[in-house]
């Protein structure tokens, strides 16, 4: 698989599943979010990273071919990010935030966090981070910030121009059952 199209679709699926994850437990979409996220990740990682992105359809799409280290940077980012997320989850669990204090969980979590820091900062495919990298990334970060501001503006605009929405429709039978089971699990178990 040499074109980045599956990776782009995978990225879109990951964004959608993260949105579903914020919808609340009553929604079916919320319940399938984790598995959808994994499918998105598989699609991203199924991209043949040895094939340069500029050899693919994007080359003709942008009408400018060349070489890039983007694919290797993405691969390294996926690896250290997975290590970091797993390490943080284990360390939080071991530190007693979501369970009992556990030295083994805490230790393994911290080993993974430190491995992630070392991998991301020392063994980066582009070498050590430089001021040049920072300068090149600044306009993108500013663009993301301005993009977020424009989203706030669009939301305010739509609220001003649209009459207040009617109350949200009630839950359907499946959603109601899911809510009842969650409430029963949290409130009904210990007679509290």
């Amino acid at each position, binding site marked *: 698989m040499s074109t980045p199209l599956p990776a782009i679709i995978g990225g879109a699926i990951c964004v959608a599943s993260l*949105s579903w994850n914020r919808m609340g437990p009553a929604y079916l979409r919320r319940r399938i979010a984790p598995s959808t996220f994994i499918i998105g990740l598989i699609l991203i990682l199924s991209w043949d990273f040895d094939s340069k992105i500029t050899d693919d359809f994007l080359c003709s799409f942008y009408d400018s071919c060349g070489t*890039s280290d*983007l694919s290797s940077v993405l691969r390294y980012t996926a690896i250290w990010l997975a290590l970091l997320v797993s390490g943080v989850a284990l360390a939080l669990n071991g530190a007693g935030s979501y369970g009992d204090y556990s030295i083994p969980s805490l230790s393994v979590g*911290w080993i993974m966090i430190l491995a992630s820091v070392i991998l991301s*900062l020392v063994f980066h495919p582009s070498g050590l981070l430089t001021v040049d990298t920072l300068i090149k*990334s*600044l*306009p993108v970060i*500013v663009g993301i910030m301005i993009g977020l501001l*424009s989203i706030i503006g669009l939301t305010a605009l739509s609220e001003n121009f649209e009459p207040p929405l009617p109350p949200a429709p009630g839950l359907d039978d499946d959603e109601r059952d899911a809510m009842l089971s969650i409430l029963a699990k949290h409130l009904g178990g210990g007679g509290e």
Partner: protein
Amino acid sequence: MTPAPLSGFIVGYSIIALAFSIHLFATYRSGSSSKILIFTSLLNTALSIWLSSRLSNDIVQGSISATFSMLSLSSLLASFVMLKITMNRVPGSS
């Protein structure tokens, strides 16, 4: 020829605009979602994607690559936050 900083800006803007449109479609619920918001967001995304499609491929890839490289600093930041959480929760520390 678009200057590199402006190209980077358009790339960042396009990424967030596209992610927001995907978010609106993913969380769409009939009767509850704002149609004006969806329409304006799609317009915003289409415009930004059109602008970014006119940029040099090398500059676009360089900008994304540099941003992912800078993202690696977040692992260092996360490790400091985790250190604080771990130290606060050591048994007998409070």
